[in-house]
């Protein structure tokens, strides 16, 4: 069972997993115990990508959401309102570990039969973890002239990759 399993990494990792073997007669005091230190990665989302509300006129335009601070620059043909945020993620892992970040280059937003496209960009292509690391994703939404009103939804992939 577990005494055959062998973990690969040891060192200055944050995660300690203690494995306690239980058996049918678990009440007896005779149990194997092992502790293994594993390198770990935690990814938590702290904010969604939110372009706020956009009111469209006869001409289209772009809404650019900065990955740096979540601020929006809105073409004059459009009216932008509401709170905007860049998507944000916290990454915790072993200090000094290098991770790559990949973000879908674009996302298709759909509302019924209508659609529009946003290009996406991340704030970092890779991180050397130093504690308290995070990255954000912003983008530019292309709104067509007379884009139909509605609630547009879309999904995009964000991946933290170990080499």
């Amino acid at each position, binding site marked *: 069972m577990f005494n055959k399993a062998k973990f690969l*990494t040891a060192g200055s990792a944050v995660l300690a997993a203690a494995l306690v073997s239980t058996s049918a007669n678990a009440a007896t005091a005779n149990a194997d115990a092992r502790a293994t230190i594993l390198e770990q990665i*935690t990814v938590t989302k702290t904010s*969604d990508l939110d372009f706020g509300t956009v009111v469209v006129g006869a001409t289209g335009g772009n809404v650019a959401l900065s990955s740096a601070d979540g601020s929006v620059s809105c073409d004059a043909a459009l009216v932008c309102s509401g709170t905007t945020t860049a998507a944000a993620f916290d990454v915790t892992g072993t200090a*000094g570990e290098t991770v790559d970040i990949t973000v879908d280059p674009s996302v298709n937003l759909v509302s019924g039969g209508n659609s529009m496209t946003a290009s996406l960009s991340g704030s970092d292509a890779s991180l050397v973890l130093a504690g308290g690391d995070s990255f954000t994703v912003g983008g530019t939404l292309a709104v067509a002239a007379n884009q139909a009103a509605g*609630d547009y939804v879309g*999904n995009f992939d964000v991946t933290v990759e*170990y080499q």
Partner: protein
Amino acid sequence: MSGFTKSLYIWAAALMLAPLPAQAAGDLLVAPTRVVLDGARGTEVILNNVGAEPATYRISLELRRMTTDGKLDEVTKEEANALEQAALSMIRYAPRRITLAPNQPQAIRIGVRPPEGLADGEYRAHMLFRAIPKARPVAPQAGEAQGLSIALTPIYGVTIPVIIRKGQLQASAAIANGRVVTDQYGAAFAFDLSRRGDKSTYGEIRVTKPGLDEPLLVARGIAVYAEVDARAVKLPVPPEIARQLTGPVKIEYFEASSAGGGLIASVQTVLK
């Protein structure tokens, strides 16, 4: 009931250290962050739901190819070459989909079943852990008559390499062309890392400057995979470190401590 599910995991350190505020469904912890198998013996990877709500995670095997600038390009199963297909077909893992309550860890068992007469070499796939997003309510909200409201859901996850080695494999590496560059992400320390042999190299980069006790830069987890003979490495550095990266420096590439920690490559250079 299997031995795995009967066993009890105690997560004292992990749970206390996990960041608690602003958790969202789909947050995840994965450990370890790299798997190397060089025999019939398997291993396991821990997936933990560190979010505040139950979440369903999908575990899949993906293919990535390293480019000469060190990025990992996605490769579809249709584009897979013989080596990549062999990796996919010999790696066994379970479960592939799991719903976890908050702070509930799950072991993903990984095993290898090499086919008869498998050629010596290094085979690799990347295991992707990702939460399946919850379905959004389809009913449109009232109001906002002329407006567009936009809801974008990131589907986020982690990939870790799963590497299978068969036979006696060798590799060496060399470092050249150390430089400080600035791109759209800010300052970075870059250099070229070349590789020879029939396996990948993996380890830690240390940049030291004569007269300084501490390295200016330490970056672990730097690989040159076997599909490339050389790659550029670009490590983001804060401005205060970038300013110090001038004059003579030593760039060293060490094996990971778990693999012996030996020196793979080293170069003394003068930065402009």
